[in-house]
C-alpha cells in the first residue's frame, strides 16, 4: 500500500500547491491576507514535514538501491524522464529541508511585516525546489530544481533583505548561475555519450578517461560555488548578511548542502578516475577553507558574517571528508552536513532573536546578555558548543568521523583540518564571550526581553535534534551505511578496473 503512493512527488509539490493557493485563494484586507498567509504556509510546510517522516519510517536501511522510485516519461524520445527516488544519501536532506521550512515560517512570523504573502509564496516555492532537487534521479530534472532555487532565493534576499540587499542578491544569483551553466554543458556531453540523463544509468556508465577530468572540472565549477569552497566562497558572506533571518537559515541549512550533495551524487560515482586524480586538489582547497576562513571569522565585527565564514570552514571539513572516500569519512561528511544544517541554521536564528529586538548585528553593540536573557544565553551556548564540536552534540560526531576517515588517507590533511577545530572553538567562544558575558552596561540592552514562547517553540525542536544526533548518532548513520558502502565499493572497483586496464596496455 505504502509503495503505491507517490510520496516523493507529494512532498515535493505540496508546498507548490500551497503557494498556488496563497496566490489565488487568499483574499481580504492586507492584515487578513498577511495572517492567513502565515497560517497557510505553516500548515502546508508542517504537513509536508509530517509526510516526509513517513518516508523515513518506510525507508529500508539495508539496501543501497533507490527507494520510493517514481518514473514517468517526460521526454520519452530523448531518454529524459521524470524519475524520483531516494537512497541513504538523500533521505536526510529531504527531511532536513522539510524540517527547516516550517521553523523558518515560524521564525518569520513577526520579523516579516511587508508583503507577507509574497514572502510565504517564495518560501514554499523554495521548499519544492529543494526537496525536488534531493529526490531527482534524472539529471535534467535535477538541473531544473537546482537552478530553480535561484529565483525564490533571489527574491527573498532582494526584497526582504538588509541595506546592501541588491548587491548581495545579484552576486548570489550570478555567481551561482555562472557555475551552473558550465555544469549544463557537462550535462549535455554526458547525455550525448550515454544517450540518457537517468542518474542510475549514468552512474553505471564508464566515461572515457580523458573526458573525465574536464567533466569533473565543469561539475566542480557548479558545486564548488554552491558548497562554497575557497576561493569561490565570497558570495556567501554577502548573501548571508543581507538575507532575512529565515533566508540565512535556509541558505546555510540546505542550499550549501546542494553542492556537496552534487559531488556525492554526480562527481564521485560517475567520474571516479577524475575524483581520484583531483582528491589532492580538493584536500588543499579544503585545508585553506578550514584554516583561512576560520581566521577571517575571528576578525569579524558582524555576527552573521562571523557565522557565514564559520560555514565555509565547516563545509571545508565536508569536502575533505567526501574526497577521502573511506566509509567513516563519507558518513562523517554526510553527518556533518546534517549537523551543520541544523546548527548553523539555529545560530542564525539566535542572531535573529537579538536582531529583531535591537536591529543591529554588530557584535560590539551587545554584551552581558546572560544577565537579562538567561534562557537565550543557554540556547545560544548549546548551539555554539555544537558548532565547536563538543562531545554530546551533533557537531562532534561529524568532525570526529571525518578526521578519522581522512587520517587513513592523508595524515597531513587530517592534522591541518584538526587545526580548524581549535580555531573554531576560538572564534565561537570569542563571539559568545563578547555577546553574552560581561557586564550589562549598554542602556538599550537592559530592556531586552528573553525568549518569547513562539521563539522557544522554534528552538525546542532544534535543541532536541542537536542533542539526539550527538548522543545517539546511529539513528542517522544507520540508513546511510549501505548506500555509502556501495558508493565506495563502486569507486574502488572503477579505480581497480582502470589500473588493470593500464597494466594490460603497458604489457
Amino acid at each position, binding site marked *: 500500500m505504502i509503495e503505491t503512493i507517490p510520496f516523493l512527488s507529494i512532498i515535493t509539490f505540496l508546498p507548490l500547491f500551497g503557494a498556488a493557493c496563497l496566490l489565488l485563494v487568499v483574499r481580504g484586507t492586507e492584515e487578513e491576507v498577511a495572517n492567513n498567509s502565515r497560517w497557510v504556509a505553516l500548515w502546508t510546510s508542517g504537513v509536508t514535514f509530517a509526510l516526509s517522516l513517513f518516508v523515513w519510517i518506510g525507508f529500508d536501511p539495508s539496501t543501497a538501491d533507490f527507494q520510493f522510485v517514481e518514473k514517468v516519461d*517526460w*521526454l*520519452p*524520445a530523448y531518454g529524459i524522464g521524470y524519475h524520483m527516488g531516494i537512497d541513504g544519501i538523500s533521505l536526510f536532506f529531504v527531511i532536513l529541508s522539510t524540517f527547516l521550512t516550517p521553523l523558518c515560517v515560524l521564525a518569520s512570523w513577526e520579523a516579516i511585516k511587508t*508583503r507577507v504573502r*509574497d514572502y510565504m509564496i517564495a518560501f514554499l516555492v523554495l521548499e519544492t525546489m529543494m526537496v525536488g532537487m534531493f529526490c531527482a534521479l534524472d539529471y*535534467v530534472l535535477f*538541473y*531544473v*530544481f537546482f*537552478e*530553480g532555487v*535561484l*529565483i525564490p532565493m*533571489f*527574491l527573498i534576499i*532582494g*526584497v526582504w533583505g538588509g541595506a546592501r*540587499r*541588491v548587491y548581495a*542578491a*545579484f552576486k548570489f*544569483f*550570478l555567481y551561482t*548561475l*555562472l557555475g551552473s*551553466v*558550465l555544469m*549544463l*554543458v557537462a550535462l*549535455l*556531453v554526458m*547525455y*550525448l555519450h550515454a544517450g540518457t540523463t537517468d542518474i542510475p544509468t549514468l552512474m553505471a556508465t564508464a566515461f572515457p578517461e580523458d573526458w573525465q577530468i574536464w567533466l569533473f572540472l565543469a561539475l566542480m565549477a557548479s558545486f564548488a560555488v554552491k558548497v562554497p569552497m575557497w576561493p569561490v566562497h565570497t558570495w556567501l558572506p554577502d548573501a548571508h548578511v543581507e538575507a532575512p533571518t529565515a533566508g540565512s537559515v535556509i541558505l546555510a541549512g540546505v542550499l550549501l548542502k546542494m553542492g556537496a550533495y552534487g559531488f556525492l551524487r554526480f562527481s564521485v560515482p560517475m567520474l571516479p578516475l577524475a575524483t581520484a586524480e583531483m582528491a589532492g586538489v580538493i584536500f588543499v582547497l579544503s585545508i585553506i577553507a578550514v584554516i583561512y576562513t576560520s581566521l577571517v571569522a575571528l576578525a569579524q565585527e558582524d555576527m552573521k558574517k562571523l557565522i557565514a565564514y564559520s560555514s565555509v570552514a565547516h563545509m571545508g571539513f565536508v569536502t575533505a571528508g567526501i574526497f577521502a572516500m573511506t566509509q567513516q569519512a563519507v558518513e562523517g561528511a554526510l553527518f556533518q552536513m546534517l549537523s551543520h544544517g541544523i546548527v548553523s541554521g539555529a545560530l542564525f536564528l539566535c542572531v535573529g532573536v537579538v536582531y529583531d529586538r535591537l536591529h543591529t548585528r554588530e557584535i560590539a553593540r551587545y554584551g552581558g546578555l546572560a544577565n537579562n536573557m538567561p534562557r537565550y544565553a543557554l540556547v545560544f551556548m548549546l548551539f555554539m558548543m555544537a558548532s565547536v564540536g563538543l562531545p554530546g552534540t551533533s557537531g562532534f560526531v561529524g568532525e570526529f568521523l571525518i578526521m578519522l576517515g581522512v587520517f587513513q588517507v592523508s595524515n597531513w590533511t587530517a592534522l591541518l583540518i584538526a587545526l580548524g577545530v581549535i580555531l573554531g572553538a576560538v572564534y565561537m567562544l570569542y563571539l559568545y564571550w563578547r555577546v553574552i558575558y560581561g557586564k550589562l552596561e549598554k542602556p538599550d540592552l537592559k530592556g531586552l526581553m528573553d525568549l518569547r514562547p513562539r521563539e522557544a517553540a522554534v528552538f525546542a525542536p532544534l535543541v532536541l535534534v542537536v542533542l539526539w544526533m550527538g548522543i545517539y548518532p546511529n539513528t542517522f548513520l544507520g540508513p546511510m551505511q549501505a548506500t555509502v558502502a556501495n558508493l565506495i565499493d563502486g569507486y574502488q572497483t572503477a579505480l581497480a578496473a582502470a589500473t588493470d586496464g593500464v597494466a594490460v596496455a603497458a604489457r
Partner: protein
Amino acid sequence: MTELPLMLPALPEMVLAVAAMGLLMFGVFARGNAFTACTWGASYALVIAGLLLTAGLGTRVEAFYGQFVVDDFTRYAKLLILVAAGSSLLMARRWMIAEDIQRFEFPVLMLLATVGMMLMVSANDLIALYMGLELQSLALYVMATLHRDNARATEAGLKYFVLGAVASGVMLYGASLVYGFAGTTGFAGIHAAISGDAAAPVGVVVGLVFVVCGLAFKISAAPFHMWTPDVYEGAPTPITALFAIAPKVAALALFLRVLMEPFQSLQTDWQQVLIVLSVLSMVVGAFAAIAQENIKRLMAYSSIGHMGYALVGMASGTSEGVRGVLVYLTIYLFMNAGTFAVILAMRQQDRPVEAIKDLAGLGRTQPLMALAMAIFMFSMAGIPPLAGFFAKFYVFMAAVDAGLILLAIIGVLTSVVSAFYYLRIVKVMYFDEPLEGLDPIRCNALRVIMGVSAVVVVFFFLSPALVVDSADVAAASLVAAR
C-alpha cells in the same frame, strides 16, 4: 493556351493577399475611420490562413514550377508567423487609437508583410526568396514610419529603409553570383550544381557569403545589428513588437532552408561564418544591453542576443540543430509577445512611457503584471523550470552533438552576462520603491496575451514534447528534402 501553374498550395498566402486588397479598398471607400473594422477583418484573414495551413499535413508539395514549396517545416514556421502577426495586431488596436494613429493602412500593411514572410518561408528559388523578402521589407519600412508626425518614428523608418535596401542589394548581388556559377536560381538546381566531387567554385562561396550577410541583416545578427536599437526605439511600440518576432521567424526559416538545401554541401564554409555571427551576436546582445535605460532598446539588444542563440543551433547544421532553432523560435515568440504586452501596458497618465525606471515598484502597485514580467525576464535569462531554459537546452544540445563545445560554452557564459540585465528589470520591479506608478491596464487584449504567454512559459516544462515533437517533424521534413 498555356496551362496555369499549380497554385493551390499557396492558398493561405492568396487568402491573405486578397484580404489585404479587399481591406484596402474598403478602407479607402468606407465612410469614417475604418481602422477597427480593418483590424478585425485582418485578424479573421489571419485565422483563416492559419486553418488553411493544416491542409496536406505531412506532405511536401511544390508549386509554381518548383519555386514555391510547402512542407511541414514551412507549415510550422508559418504558424509561428501568423500567431506573431495576429498577437501584434490585437495588441496594437487600443494603443493606436490612444495615440491617434488609427490608420486603416496598418492592418493592410500587416497582412502584406505577413504574405511576404510566408513567401520567404516557402521560397524554393532565389527569385522567390528575393520577392518575399522585399514584399515583407517594404511593408515593414512603411509601418515603422506610420507615426509620421513623430520625428523619431520617421528617422527610424528612414534608417531602416536605407540600411535594409543596402542589405537587400548585397544579397541580390550574392544571388546573382550564385546564379552565374550555378546556372540556375532554383534551390534544387543549385544543390545539384555544386554538390559534385569537385570543389565548389569560389564565386559560389563568395555569393553565399553575401547572401548570408543579407540574411544576417534581416535577423539583426551582429555585426549587422546597428539598425536594430534605433528602429526598435523609434517605431511605434506595437510595430516594434511585430519587428521583434515575426520577421525574425521568417528570416531564420529562410536562412535555414538556404543553408540546409542548396548550400548543404558547403557546410564547412558557412559553418565558420555562422559561428562568428553567433558569437558576436551573443556577446553584443549580452554586453550592450547592460547600459540601456529604455526598455525598447533593451529588448532590441536582447533580441540580438537571442538570434545569437538561435544561430548556435543553426551552426550545428544537423536535424537536431534545426529542431533546436524551431523550438527556440516558438518559445521566443511567447516570451517576446508577453514582454511587449507588458511594455504596451506601461502608461502613465494615459501617456506611454518606456524607461526601465518607470517600472519601479510594479511588484506592489500591480502584482500580476509584475509577476508576468518577472516570469518573462527569468525565462529569457534561461532559468529553469521556465520555457527559456528549454529553448537554450535544445540549441546547446545540438551544438554539443555537432562537436561545437566551445561555442556552447561561450553561449552559456554570455547567458550569464545577459541574466544580469534581465535581473535588473526584476530588481526595479520588486526591490525598488514605487515612483509614480503605472496606470492600470485597460486593454483586455493585452491582459489575455500577457496571461496566455505567462502560462505557456511557466508550464512549458509539463510537456515539452508537445512543441519539441512537432518541431522534430518539421526539422525532419527540411533535412530529408535534401
